[in-house]
């Protein structure tokens, strides 16, 4: 039990609405529906701790959790908590003592002492759990928000990670049913919230705004001579969004999407081919000296040849325009992927292969268990480059041969003096390209959880 209960006085003054308002300020209860929040507020007992009061000690049994209303409390975690920061000061709106909510280990993890006269709300964890029993949806949400909050502070030891599935302990649901998607969604929401609060989105918007303003001012306002023939921002946007575009291409015309889809399809095929062949070749070049000496000189001789130089030969070889375009798109991606994969293999510390062979792995197992995963970070860096490279070689290819596609749009618009359409094509290309490389990055993060955590740890 907590040590100095006797010293804590029961304060007065906070009514249900005030308590609810305070709970609303906390991370875990922020999104609880009003009616439920009022019921939680009814569970909360207000107390005042004079400065120096010890609220609880590490190792004490944990029955209640606390919300700080005013004042401050020093919160010192024991070393086994594996937290990024052991001692911190908590103040209004912070929630402490959540160990009481754990289904597995209801022991205090920290020692807490009031730094100043402090007003707190004491909430009995069992009663809170009972309450959630009747409102499973809210319960799951609160628990997942708790998990997120805790995660901020800790590298979760396993038993702690279980808070996530606490829903299974408090709310009677089978483990299989524990709504992973829901907690994921909550986590996503929380991350989004963090992102909005960080300076990132505002810097991003500022960046875009600066470019657009420059464009607008140089063309439409100052009318600088160099920019005389360039379509202005307003003109492009109007054309882009027009139901009846002057030059025939806008978000309302089906051709617009045909071009996008044709381009995406070409990049997709070329990228898949480049990845399959590039990764394979890169792995073998990195792994086997023989293969490298055989292939690498040829590879390095062909690599500097620009895509445009390949155009005539590609047309002669493939004849069919579609294959020509795909081949040209493929080529640069393939180089980027193969080279990065090879460097990835080179980057693997030899001690990993030695350890594996020591432990009884044969050559093929070393390849699968060490070389492939070890090269993965480089491979994905390569793939991100390769997707970008694919887009710009695509445009080059489409300008030369092809009947559809964004590169084709840009090129024909030029010859047919449809200047706004050129810009529409360019912006669309940029947006689609950005999306595809973001997708590759997300896939990489998903496949390399260990890497994501390693990088996250680097920030500690």
């Amino acid at each position, binding site marked *: 039990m907590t040590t100095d209960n006797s010293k804590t006085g029961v304060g007065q003054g906070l009514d249900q609405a005030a308590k609810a308002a305070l709970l609303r300020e906390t991370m875990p209860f922020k999104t609880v529906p009003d009616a439920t929040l009022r019921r939680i507020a009814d569970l909360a007992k207000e107390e005042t701790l004079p400065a120096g009061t010890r609220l609880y000690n590490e190792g004490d049994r944990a029955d209640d959790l606390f919300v700080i209303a005013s004042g401050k409390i020093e919160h010192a975690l024991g070393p086994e908590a594996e937290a990024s920061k052991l001692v911190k000061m908590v103040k209004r709106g912070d929630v402490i003592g959540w160990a009481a909510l754990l289904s597995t280990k209801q022991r205090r993890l920290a020692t807490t002492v009031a730094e100043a006269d402090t007003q707190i709300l004491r909430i009995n964890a069992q009663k809170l759990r009972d309450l959630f029993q009747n409102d499973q949806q809210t319960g799951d949400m609160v628990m997942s928000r708790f998990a997120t909050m805790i995660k901020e502070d800790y*590298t979760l*030891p*396993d*038993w702690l*990670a279980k808070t996530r599935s606490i829903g299974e302990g408090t709310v009677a649901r089978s483990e299989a049913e524990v709504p992973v998607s829901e907690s994921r969604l909550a986590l996503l929401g929380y991350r989004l919230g963090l992102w909005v609060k960080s300076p990132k989105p505002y810097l991003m918007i500022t960046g875009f705004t600066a470019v657009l303003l420059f464009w607008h001012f140089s063309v439409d306002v100052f009318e600088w001579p160099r920019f005389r023939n360039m379509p202005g921002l307003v003109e492009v946007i109007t054309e882009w969004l027009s139901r009846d575009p002057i030059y025939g291409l806008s978000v309302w015309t089906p051709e617009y999407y045909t071009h996008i889809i044709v381009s995406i399809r070409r990049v997709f095929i070329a990228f898949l081919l480049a990845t399959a062949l590039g990764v394979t070749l890169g792995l073998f070049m990195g792994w086997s000296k023989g293969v490298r000496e055989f292939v690498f000189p040829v590879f390095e001789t062909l690599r500097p040849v620009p895509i445009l130089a390949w155009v005539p030969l590609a047309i002669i070889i493939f004849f069919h325009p579609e294959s020509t375009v795909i081949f040209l798109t493929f080529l640069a991606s393939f180089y980027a992927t193969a080279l990065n994969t090879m460097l990835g293999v080179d980057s693997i*510390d030899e*001690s*990993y292969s*030695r*350890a*594996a*062979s*020591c*432990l*009884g*792995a*044969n050559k093929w*197992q070393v390849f699968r*268990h*060490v070389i492939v*995963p*070890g090269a*993965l970070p480089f491979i994905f860096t390569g793939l991100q480059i390769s997707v970008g490279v694919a887009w710009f070689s695509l445009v080059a290819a489409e300008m030369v041969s092809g009947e559809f596609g964004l590169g084709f749009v840009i090129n024909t618009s030029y010859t047919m003096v449809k200047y706004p359409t050129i810009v529409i094509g360019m912006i669309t290309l940029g947006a689609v390209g950005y999306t595809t490389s973001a997708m590759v990055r997300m896939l990489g993060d998903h496949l*390399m*959880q*260990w*890497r994501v*955590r*390693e990088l996250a*740890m680097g920030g500690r």
Partner: protein
Amino acid sequence: MSAVMNKPGKGSQNLKVNSAEMRVEGVSKSYGIAHLRENVVHNASFVIEKSKLTVMIGPSGCGKSTLIRLLAGFDKPDSGTVTIDGKPVKGPDRDRLVVFQESALFPWMNTYDNIMYGPRARGEVDDETKALAEFLLDKVGLTQFRNKFPSQLSGGMQRRAELARAMINFPRVMILDEPFRGLDAMTKELMWEYYAGLYEESRRTNFFVTTDIDEAIFLADRLLIMTNIPTQVRAVLEVDLPRPRNLKELLESDRANEIKMEALGILHEEAMKSFSSGSAAASDFIEAYSKRVKKKG
């Protein structure tokens, strides 16, 4: 060679194994080409006695890691033989497991998968192995960290995970290459006691390489003191201190200090030699050494 291994019958609470003896006889190894060729190990002979903890100590850069590569079978000697129970070493094998200087835990596998790697690679996963993995996880205090990736573990935890990853294979000889280097002093001392405990329980043949004299004396049954490059065994000291040892008793033990002074004396000479031949590592060593002597005096 890995055909018949000696797993303990049941319960897996028993880490005792059929240890082996390793012999290095007249081994030489040089690296480099033409006039740059350097003789790293020259005509070295020693025995890693069965069921003993042999510690090898020498000035840094003296070719200890080369010897380890030869023992593990990653490299072949230019001349001489390395044998395990009389059979020549042909290549890496699970009967001689190496715990490396830098952590060689696979960063893409969590603790449990790392520990299970050996049995899985050999296709020897059965209920007994799984039970043993649990036992070892518990033994090295990492049960709660089974799903963590190595980067999420502290240095000490990584070392323990690596010890577990080796032990699950019942190696007949464990070879450790400065495994506790880079740990902070506190953790290091804890790891000594920890590792010594594991050894005392299993009495497996252990070969431990270090540059730290305190570490060497705390752990060793036998202490091999190496010369500078080209490496040979300069002296063998029997460390006849009772087990289990504890650090405090050892500090107060006259016998321990006696061994230490003797070892340091020999090492000092070696360091002086390499100092005069211009090794940077040696000057550090001499500085450290003279401090220690002063403290003792």
